[in-house]
């Protein structure tokens, strides 16, 4: 798993949502007024230049991009690594209508999606107050949204649990959630993924709960500045070395534009146990240059 060919290089979607972890100001400055078709073109360009797939938060924006790619026959069994839930949107809704209002809105969306499995599972779980059932119903709903956009023209390689849910569940000792998530997705042939800002803590907890890390994919920050690497860059690097196989997809490798691509590449190339990296791009030319560079040298 150390050969260059085996590394996974994914195009990320943060710029499509106007997100920059360097500064919101910067995100607004480069805010993409581009249509879904133009964003789809950026993803296609990244894939043509070395990206092995697309990692995205499941939202109306990204589902439209997938729709456009399907319409133009650009999907070609592209590997998809969706991140759920789209936390920014849910936090915004919770800000507007509160947590119970958010739950009601999500329930309504699930009904409107006409995913009967999700609906039945969801209703049954609410009645019996079964959080595991609710989790599975929610997963079924999100997967159905992606499949509806791609109509099986893409491959769902992994479903990655957003850091907000992963990290909260880690700290509150919800081992049942991780086990249930892994078992549900594994049964469908999808690699269970976890996005975290607390990689060493996750590894420690998974070992404690006897969860086999090797059957998962972990998306977590790795960058030269140690930005969002908790508790420290050194601890994260040490933990990376300790994993028995490459399960980590590095995110924030450019630290949201803080580093130039060659500098970022030099750092992540020095890490021996990475499975790959997710990198967001906002322009076609950037997609071409950046993925060519990383494909050739990572």
């Amino acid at each position, binding site marked *: 798993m150390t050969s260059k060919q085996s590394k996974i290089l994914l195009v990320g979607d943060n710029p499509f949502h106007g997100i920059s972890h360097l*500064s*919101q100001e910067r995100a607004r400055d480069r805010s993409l007024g581009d249509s879904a078709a133009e964003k789809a073109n950026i993803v296609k360009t990244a894939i043509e230049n070395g990206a092995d797939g697309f990692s995205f938060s499941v939202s109306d924006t990204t589902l439209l991009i997938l729709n456009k790619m399907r319409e133009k026959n650009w999907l070609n069994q592209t590997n998809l690594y969706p991140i759920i839930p789209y936390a920014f949107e849910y936090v915004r809704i919770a800000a507007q209508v509160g947590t*119970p209002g958010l739950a009601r809105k999500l329930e309504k969306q699930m009904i409107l999606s006409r995913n009967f499995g999700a609906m039945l599972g969801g209703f049954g779980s609410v009645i019996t107050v079964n959080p595991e059932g609710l989790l599975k119903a929610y997963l079924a709903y999100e997967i159905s949204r992606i499949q509806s956009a791609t109509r099986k023209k893409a491959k769902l390689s992994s479903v990655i649990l957003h850091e907000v849910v992963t990290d909260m569940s880690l700290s509150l000792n919800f081992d049942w959630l991780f086990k249930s998530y892994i078992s549900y997705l594994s049964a469908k042939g999808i690699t269970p993924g976890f996005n975290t800002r607390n990689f060493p803590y996750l590894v420690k907890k998974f070992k404690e709960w006897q969860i086999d890390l090797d059957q998962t994919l972990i998306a977590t920050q790795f960058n030269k500045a140690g930005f969002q690497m908790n508790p420290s860059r050194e601890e994260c690097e040490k933990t990376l070395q300790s994993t028995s196989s490459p399960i980590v997809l590095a995110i924030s490798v450019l630290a949201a534009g803080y580093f130039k691509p060659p500098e970022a590449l030099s750092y992540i190339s020095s890490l021996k146990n990475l499975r790959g990296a997710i990198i967001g791009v906002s322009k076609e030319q950037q997609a071409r240059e950046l993925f060519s560079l990383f494909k050739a040298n990572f």
Partner: protein
Amino acid sequence: MANQKVRTAIIGLGKMGLLHASLLNVMKDVELVALCDKSGLMNRLFKSAFKGTDISILNDFNKLSELNLDAVYVTTPIPSHSFIVKSLYAKKIARNIFVEKTLAENYTQSKELCLAAKNVDSITMVGYMKRFNVIFEKAKELLTQGNLGEPTSFKAYAYSSDFVELSKNSKLTASRGGAIRDIGCHVIDLAFWLLGDLELHDVTSAVQTEKDGEPPFSFMAATSAGLTGQFEISQRMPNYHMPEFGLTIECQKGKIQVNDDRLILTPVDAAPKKWFRHDLHDNVDFSMGEAEYFRENRHFMDALLANQKCEPNFETAAKVDNFIDQLLSRSSPQ
């Protein structure tokens, strides 16, 4: 409390309650004993989710009295803060209390809570977590060093897109306390912290018009030393993916422009310098939301363990409530 674990409970399990619960539960010197929410359905769901853990799930905060608690977090909607905090003191449920911002619904209530806290020698804290953001900490450090001389004027803003799609005067914004209590209080607290106590001057009309016709809330304030500045607050600004808070502070020998993500220092006689979070060691033992939330909780727990006063406490937060009361009484309804 030295060499012991701080026995803690949380009342209110919305997103802030869960965030604090998550951060406290990873701290080795904290024992998260109970979580409390009055919603029947949420209560049953949480009971099921927390099965197998040592954390009790309760639906009535009065039941916390049996748990020998050192501290309670109150993360319920603002209108309930006063009643809950007073009850916690009156029933001797816990001596020390953390309240999510704002402290209360108005200054009258805030003063009552300050008095109640004083009567039991309570260590208190209010969730103005922006003070624990490394960028704002850097701004405080630079202003304290004084190399730029005295501040002469400032501009401050708090913007979000939370309600950008909603109709004007939506009941939803009102139910959350409106833009001033919801996000404005953070930048008011930052201005108090960075520049000193402020007095309200003019509540002006819009400086800038938003797309849908509703202006940002705009007003002028001044310190007793004569420093004046302008605030703008809006939850209806387009393209603010997350709420953003910022200040531009003009000083005698230069300028500081600071927001959640970056600080630009522009001395009159030297080249500008810029810092991002990346430059300021923003790492914490465990991150949820942003790193400042961990630091805020750690600060409160350290104060409890050392039996020391901490900031921002009820007294500090009451000043913000006083300022907001004056502001709202002198402006048209939002």
